[in-house]
Structures are given as structure tokens and as C-alpha cells.
């Protein structure tokens, strides 16, 4: 497990460093908003979550492309560990993204003499959204044949994007302003707890699927 995590961490460092500017840009924009208004644009939450949840799936696609998945099968790790490692990576990624977002935007809000509650709730929601997206996508990735991962991946994000757009449209039709929506820290924490539970269930399902697959 440690070796798999190490490999993915080095892989991110060597191949996916280009994702960092987007992440930092989103944090920066939210920090400016927190500083000036004490609020974050909630569009930043799904935006960052979708982006962050790409990471484990992209790593899995790359493992298939480079043949590392077969190499991993020759190493002293079980299939269960291989799946659990990808979920653990997702959770670490969610936690780091959420914590970093919350730290920077809370600091910005406090510097601007605003409440840090909304930025903190935003950070928690980012972590929750990352976990939810991954919990939904990853079993699908383990079900489909490796050749079709890319297609499923694109399809999943089109569907997620569509759902988010539709939700925005429905909310606007009923007079809700998503941009200024207020979610409490407590509600965010409950959503995060539910997301973690969903991720745990998803992990068990993925392990059962991967256990039966030929590589």
C-alpha cells in the first residue's frame, strides 16, 4: 500500500504538476471574494471538486496506458489494497484540497474583518464534493473495460456538468440565488460525514468488482 501511494504521489509530482495553477487560481479567486465580502462563490466548490476528483481516475487511466497496472499485479499487494489505495489517495486529495482552500480563504476573510464561517464551510464542502464525485465515478471505472475508461470519464463529467447546470436552472426558476447561498459549517460537516460513508461503501463495491476482473 505504501509503495502504491508513493508511486501515485511521484506520478502526480512528475506528470500532473500542470494541474496546480488551476487549483491555485480557484483558491486565489475565492480568497479575494472572502477578503472583500466574507463569502465564497459556491460555484468554486463543484468547480474545484470536479477538477480534484479527476485525479485518481486520470492516474488509473495512466496505469492502464503505461501497463503499470500489470506491473502492480506482480508486486506484493493484494487487489483489495490496490483499490483501497486509490480511495485513500482520493480522500487525502479531498482533505488537502479542502484544508488548503479553507486555510487560505479563512485567513483572507479574517484579514478583511469578515466572518470565516462561509470560507470554512466551503472548504469542508470541497472535501465532501471530491469524495462524492469519486465515490460515484470509481466503481464505474472498475466495472467497464479499461479501453472504455476514457469514454466513461468524459460521459461522467458531461452528466455531472449537466446536472449542476440543471440544478442551477431549477434553483433560479424557484427564486433561489445559488451565488449567495449560505450553508452553515454544521450542515457542511454533515454532508462531509455522508460523503465519507458513501466513499467507504463505494470502496467496498469497487473491491468486489476488481476482485473478479482479469487484467
Amino acid at each position, binding site marked *: 500500500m505504501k509503495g502504491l501511494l508513493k508511486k501515485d504521489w511521484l506520478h502526480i509530482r512528475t506528470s500532473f504538476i500542470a494541474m496546480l495553477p488551476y487549483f491555485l487560481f480557484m483558491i486565489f479567486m475565492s480568497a479575494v471574494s472572502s477578503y472583500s465580502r466574507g463569502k465564497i462563490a459556491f460555484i468554486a466548490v463543484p468547480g474545484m471538486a470536479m477538477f480534484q476528483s479527476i485525479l485518481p481516475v486520470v492516474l488509473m487511466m495512466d496505469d492502464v496506458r503505461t501497463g503499470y497496472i500489470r506491473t502492480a499485479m506482480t*508486486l506484493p499487494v493484494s487487489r483489495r489494497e490496490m483499490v483501497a489505495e486509490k480511495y485513500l489517495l482520493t480522500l487525502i486529495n479531498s482533505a488537502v484540497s479542502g484544508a488548503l482552500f479553507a486555510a487560505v480563504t479563512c485567513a483572507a476573510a479574517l484579514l478583511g474583518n469578515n466572518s470565516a464561517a462561509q470560507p470554512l464551510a466551503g472548504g469542508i464542502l470541497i472535501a465532501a464534493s471530491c469524495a462524492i464525485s469519486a465515490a460515484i465515478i470509481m466503481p464505474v471505472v472498475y466495472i467497464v473495460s479499461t479501453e472504455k475508461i476514457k469514454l466513461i470519464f468524459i460521459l461522467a463529467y458531461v452528466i455531472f456538468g449537466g446536472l449542476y447546470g440543471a440544478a442551477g436552472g431549477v434553483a433560479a426558476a424557484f427564486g433561489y440565488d445559488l451565488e449567495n447561498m449560505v450553508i452553515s459549517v454544521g450542515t457542511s460537516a454533515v454532508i462531509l460525514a455522508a460523503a465519507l460513508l458513501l466513499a467507504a461503501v463505494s470502496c467496498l463495491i469497487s473491491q468486489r468488482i476488481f476482485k473478479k476482473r482479469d487484467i
Partner: protein
Amino acid sequence: MNAIEIKGLVKEYKGFKLNSVDLTLPGGCVLGLIGENGAGKSTLIKCLLGIIHKNSGSIRILGRDADTELADIKEDVGVVLDDVGIPDAFKFKHINEVMKNTFRNWDEKSFEEYMDKFSLPKDKRFKEFSRGMKMKMGIAIALSHKAKLLVLDEATNGLDPVVRDEVTDIFYEFTRDEEHSILISSHIVSDLEKLCDYISFIHKGNVLLNEEKDVLLEGYAIAHCTEAEMAELDPEAVRGKKVSKYGAQVLVRRDAVPDGMNLSPVTIEELFIFMIKDVG
């Protein structure tokens, strides 16, 4: 203790069946798996390593049940598959770092020595390696964690003859330790002939033969005769034949042909070709 014991292994695909394979690799020995492309060598090795699932049968590796203890068994198994998969951007230091965190007995010094021995550049990314260099990297990894068993699937593919010879010597050196064993599959029979104690012929998913190499080389010969002489041979003695307008070449059991017959020694490659043609 046997390094590998396979009993009644069945794996069925659409249009292919690995048919109730029995195979034993005694500890401290080298077993060569010989077969043409698509014969089932890689399928057998993939089943052994749990890369694909078997339909039935049992597999024991280093005396332990592969169904229940495979991940732990792999601490003692070095594997080189026909295609070495490492992330493109990885260099020597990254691979070393990953393996150090993967194998309990990872030996950094040994890995570095193999890198030097194989003249592999430490500052190049894996994607910049040639196929031969990638295979050498796979072999270096397999040899650097104090494995007791090496499983090599077409591991010498893509290597030039000089390096192949060098690598064969390294494998030979590996087996000098009585606890070390090798299962090696290849269609380059000359490599296996040099290295193996046991030979197994696999054809269309069936194991045709599993025997000590020396017994095979001493027990079989090629008889050069006319078609009429061939017809007189005991059918039990004949394991394969080639007939041309210049006469017949017959693969025979030495102990079952009449004295004074014109016999020449057989190579493993000839033995394999004759048997495959005979089975069809």
C-alpha cells in the same frame, strides 16, 4: 520443497482453453516453458500470478497456497513480463523509491549495481528507454529484492544476442543458490536450452511434455532413414517425422529403435518442432 506446483489448471477464453495443466518446478531448478505464440504460456503465467483468474485447479508457490496468500508470496517472487510497465516520467530514483516502499527486502545497492551492469542511464525518463532497456530495467527490479523464485515471461525478448547471453549468465548465477528457482517462458529455445534443468512443451493449451532436459536429450534422437525403413519402426518409438524426397527424419526414442540405426543427437528446438508437427 517445490517452487511451483500446478494441478489441473483450467482457464477458458472464447476460442482458447488452458486444458487441465499439471506442472511442477522443483526447488533450485529452472523450468523452461516452450510453446509457439498463442500456445498458452503467458496465460499460464498470468494465472500463476493472479493477473487473470483461473476457472479451476490449484496453484502452490514456494510451498504456499496462491489462492489465499498470493500477495505475501510475491515478496519472494521476481517477475518480468513481456512488457515492462512503469510510468513514463519515472527515472531511476523514482523507481527505486517506489520499490523501496513496496518490497520488504528491497536492496538499493543491488539495484544500482544492476543499473550499472546493464548500462542503464539513471537520469533518463522511462519513456525515453528503448525496448531492450525497458526489459533490462524489469530484470534489474526482479533481481533486486532477494527473490527466491523468478518468473520470466518472454523476458529476453527485445534484447540483442550479446545482452541476452549476459542476462542468461545472470539468471544462471541466480540459480547457483540452492533455494533459487526460475520459471521462464520463451520461444527463443536456444536461451532455454542453455539455462533449463526441466523443459515443458505447451501447445494449444495442453502440456505435451514435462521432463528433465538431460533425460530428453539422452532419450531421444533423430533417425535418418528411407520411408521404407521408417515404416518398419515400432510406432511406440516414433514421436514425430519429416519426410522429403531425400528421405525421412524421424524423432525416435533411442531405447526403442534397432541397434545400428543412423541416429543423430536432437536439440530441444528440434524436439519441440517434431512433436508440435506430430500433434498438429
